[in-house]
């Protein structure tokens, strides 16, 4: 059985699954419930000078009946007192000494940063996470993403925390920035031990078409919110990989963004994360989701012969390369399994109107009889010679394994765009003719 425990920049945790700083990590009560359910760590809801929240606070993007695929909030940092938060951290840490408790912090002045880092340490926190990511409300006051978007400011504030910190410093990065690695490098330059990403994306999820006010509606007005949930996972994966692949960043990564299952978590680990943090999925389904995450990751690691989480961390990072290095001579085409085809013809219309017009509707005779296919009703057929291997048909096909992408042997050696440019320059080959 693979060992799920992790050592994240010196912070030990029985597993890589942490509750991210947010509404589920607001109280000792919730932390107790989280640890009892199986979570390995809790990153406390950000502590800072007391704030006041508005009502309402959340909105969601629902797609074809699936709810909360995207989620948006305009809630600020903790609205509880600083004393209460640090007291409860101490209580939780006392009861769960082997679990990770990290204090998320957001204050303004050097003196305040010193004070809050010390108080977190005194409370027994295993580390601090500097919230440089929140894109709403706090940034208007010069905190949160206002810090994270300016590498020089990031570096300066991290260095303030570093001056007094005896526990690991994690810097939480905002994705609302052109180059995430510049922020990561600034965190390192300031003395951070690790980074966590991504915080939420600036967003407006929807406009109420009756009131013409976006949601969440606060008395007839809304505000730019922070976007998270399953919809942001691809953005988060991209940024995690970018930081993991950059040797000038070189910090452990806690992956955040749209994680709700062990499969999501495994993808973040494979792209360079050492631990992962979850918030929206808990807000949707409760702490109980961790049971499947633990079992699933364990089983996956075992099935791959990996003995610890670290064996997975970063494994997929080197497979993300510059486009110009990809093999132009690699070729695959779509193939339809007529014993599975149900005759919905979605592949046809997708290719016809949205891709390369190489799936025809033809008479069904002689092409097998899939389940439920109607006699005489035309069925799709790929013209392989014209198929560019774009994958679209296999993505729209509603039947598992009905359309597969078949790799074809091109009979010629690998050649990247870079190779191609060099061969052209050397006169070793004529230009590849444009697609008709």
């Amino acid at each position: 059985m693979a060992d799920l425990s992790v050592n994240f920049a010196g912070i030990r945790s029985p597993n890589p699954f942490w509750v991210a700083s947010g509404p589920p990590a607001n109280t000792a009560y919730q932390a107790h419930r989280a640890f009892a359910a199986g979570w390995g760590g809790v990153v406390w809801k950000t502590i800072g000078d007391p704030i006041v929240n508005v009502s309402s606070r959340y909105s969601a993007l629902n797609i074809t009946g699936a709810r909360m695929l995207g989620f948006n909030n305009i809630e600020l940092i903790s609205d509880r007192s600083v004393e209460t938060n640090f007291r409860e951290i101490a209580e939780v840490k006392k009861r769960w000494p082997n679990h990770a408790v990290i204090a998320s912090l957001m204050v303004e002045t050097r003196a305040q940063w010193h004070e809050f880092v010390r108080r977190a340490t005194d409370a027994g926190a295993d580390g601090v996470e500097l919230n440089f990511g929140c894109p709403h409300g706090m940034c208007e006051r010069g905190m949160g993403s206002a810090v994270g978007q300016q590498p020089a400011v990031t570096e300066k504030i991290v260095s303030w925390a570093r001056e007094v910190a005896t526990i690991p410093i994690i810097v939480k990065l905002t994705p609302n920035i052109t180059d995430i690695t510049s922020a990561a490098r600034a965190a390192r330059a300031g003395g951070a031990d690790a980074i966590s990403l991504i915080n939420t994306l600036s967003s407006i999820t929807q406009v109420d078409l009756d009131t013409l006010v976006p949601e969440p509606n606060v008395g007839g007005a809304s505000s730019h919110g922070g976007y998270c949930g399953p919809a942001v996972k691809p953005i988060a994966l991209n940024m995690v990989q970018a930081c993991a692949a950059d040797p000038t960043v070189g910090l452990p990564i806690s992956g955040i963004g749209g994680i709700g299952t062990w499969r999501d978590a495994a993808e973040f680990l494979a792209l360079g994360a050492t631990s992962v943090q979850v918030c929206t999925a808990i807000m949707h389904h409760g702490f109980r989701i961790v049971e499947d995450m633990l079992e699933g990751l364990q089983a996956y690691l075992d099935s791959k012969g990996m003995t610890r989480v670290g064996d997975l961390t970063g494994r997929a990072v080197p497979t993300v390369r510059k486009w110009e290095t990809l093999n132009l001579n690699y070729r695959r085409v779509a193939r339809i399994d007529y014993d599975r085809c149900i005759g919905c013809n979605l592949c046809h219309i997708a290719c016809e109107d949205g891709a390369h017009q190489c799936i025809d509707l033809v008479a069904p005779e002689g092409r097998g009889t899939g389940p439920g296919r109607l006699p005489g009703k035309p069925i799709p057929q790929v013209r392989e010679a014209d198929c560019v291997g774009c994958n679209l048909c296999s993505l729209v096909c509603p039947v598992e394994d009905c359309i597969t992408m078949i790799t074809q042997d091109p009979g010629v050696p690998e050649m990247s765009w870079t190779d191609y440019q060099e061969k052209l320059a050397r006169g070793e080959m004529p230009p590849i003719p444009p697609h008709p």
Partner: protein
Amino acid sequence: MPTGPKLDAAAIATNMAEIHPPLSPAAAVVAAHRCLFCFDAPCIRACPTGIDIPSFIRKITTDNLAGAGRTILSANILGASCARVCPTAVLCEGACVLHSRGESPVEIGRLQRHATDYVFERQLQVLPSAATATGFRVAVLGGGPAGLGCAAELAQLGHGVTVFEKRPHAGGLNTHGIAYYKMKPDVSLAEVEMVAGLGVEFRRGVEVGRDIPMANLERDFAALFLGFGLGGGRRLGIPGENLPGVVEAVDWIEQLHTRPLDTVAVGESVAVIGGGNTALDAVNQARRLGARQVVVIYRRGVDDLPAYDFERQLALQGGAEFLFYTTPVAILADAAGAVSGIRLAATRALRTGDPELDRNTAQVMAVDMVIKAVGQEKPGAILRQLLPDLALNPDGTVRHDATTGQTNLPRVFTGGDCANGGREVVNAVAEGKRAARSIHALLTGKAVTGPVQSSRAGVTGNPWGAGFDQPIRVAPVARKHSSKEDAHGGPVR
């Protein structure tokens, strides 16, 4: 207890509640999201009227219910009643590709109802206004589904249309003959009003040949559409058939639609003769009106029942009993002249499939009501009077071209039960609509083609696409026997 009303109005209202209640708006959206939005969708091809089902369902997901209603009603003017009475399991839903993924099909019928209810409850005008008037006038004989399908299409194409309906209300079997728990008559009457709203003139209570000479119609109208359905119930030809307490299924069901339900007489023990869908409609309604025992008398076996299997299941759930390989030989009366029993004999299924009466097995079952449902008379007799030159089929239905609905008389078209011998409402609408397009072509020289999903021609050059003009049949509603009479389980003589 003698034959008569059995239950009070409240109990009947409970019993007669719709078996397929409407979807809530939230449930409709969930149901609609299950649709894969197939291209060249098999459900469209399985619909005789070619409704663009994926399109109207997609519109439901976006709360564009008026648009969904337009998609439905522009293809099938009786989309609201078809949503309730269509045998969707063997039509659109039977063709749904989700079956092939091991899932239940999209609830097309209930979604169609959701969209059409929205339109009718708000009395929205979703159909485009009629084309420029052509100046032609067309007479439609019979205001049932075929006549309405024809009239609505003609009116939308710009023709003047007059519907001659002998009853006080139009709608035909949709108004008078649908099982009450499937659809109440007000749905059909609202559809008639919608057709009237398209500019169609209705002359109700007017029977052609009795109240107005056929010659006048031939003189005053550029074309005629015959859509007056079937005649009265076929006779059993056995003793006791004329006793009070012996009723025709269609007549009895019509009573349910024209009188308060708590005044409709039903027996304590009812024998229903026949195994078709009308027979089972009678069975289910007799039970719901309070009959204690209802027995279906059918002369073949369970696998031969012409009724849809889901109708049989409904009857079984309602507590009906089935006597197979059995046929009535006499209906008996008590001293007061009321039905007291029915003498039955066993039939033997021979290899030919034709039942043979075994007269040695006669037995008497005590019943106080007999409902006959062994098919309806074909309209041959009245047609011979009205249009002596009209060519008929040997079974008494109107001979016609299946693709145009045209009869041997060039200006006379037909559709619905009088032409097809008795099929579904949706078939009648489709045949009426098809005949209307043929009439339009005859009168104006311009062809009308239905909206068909566009698709680039395949490599074979054939323009594929589902729609009204390319119908297919999924699960054949085929008769299991060569002759209709056999299928309806008429008595062996």
